[in-house]
């Protein structure tokens, strides 16, 4: 059975601090996606990681993919309140399908 595990599930951090969210998965895959969800809203695509060693950066967020370790990370640099949201990773399982992790609920406090 495919497992996509995110940790932590809940993260409370101070503005200005750095932190990393981890996404481990149990299947062979070379593609992984990160999404952001604000409360009551839909999912917004953040990053598409398409190969081993891929690194993407957008503002204070940086995502990376290690397909050999079956691990992706989402690194937050100098957090600001606007980054408060739930972040989901999703693993491509082939046939244009993907499966989601449980999500990491991030709260950034002033």
């Amino acid at each position, binding site marked *: 059975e495919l497992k996509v595990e995110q940790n932590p599930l809940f993260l409370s951090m101070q503005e200005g601090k750095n932190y990393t969210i981890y996404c481990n998965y149990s299947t062979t895959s070379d593609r992984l996606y990160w999404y952001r969800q604000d409360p009551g809203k*839909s*999912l917004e695509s953040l990053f598409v990681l398409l190969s081993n060693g891929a690194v993407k950066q957008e503002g204070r967020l940086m995502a990376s993919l290690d397909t050999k370790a079956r691990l992706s990370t989402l690194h937050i640099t100098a957090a600001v309140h606007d980054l408060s949201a739930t972040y989901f990773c999703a693993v491509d399982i082939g046939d244009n*399908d993907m499966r*989601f992790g449980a*999500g990491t609920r991030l709260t950034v406090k002033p």
Partner: protein
Amino acid sequence: EPEVTQTPSHQVTQMGQEVILRCVPISNHLYFYWYRQILGQKVEFLVSFYNNEISEKSEIFDDQFSVERPDGSNFTLKIRSTKLEDSAMYFCAHKGPGGRETQYFGPGTRLLVL
């Protein structure tokens, strides 16, 4: 980012009633998906649809559920006899023909079964 639309945005129904949720596709997108998210929980895959056929479905997607593109445009999810536990946010998503793109999610339909 391509925009996906869904109707209705909210629906309240009585247990045992049928509901149809609609998704308006992006014209050049070929792959369609339905997901469910119970309040505050993870995003659960229901079904994927390609070339007017179901290509994959989860164990959640039982005989009470069906999908179709009735007029070649809108993509619908039907729940034949709703249960209390069907209350959730339902998202449709699309993916383009490139094969390496992400899935784009609609705004969702919030379904409440009473």
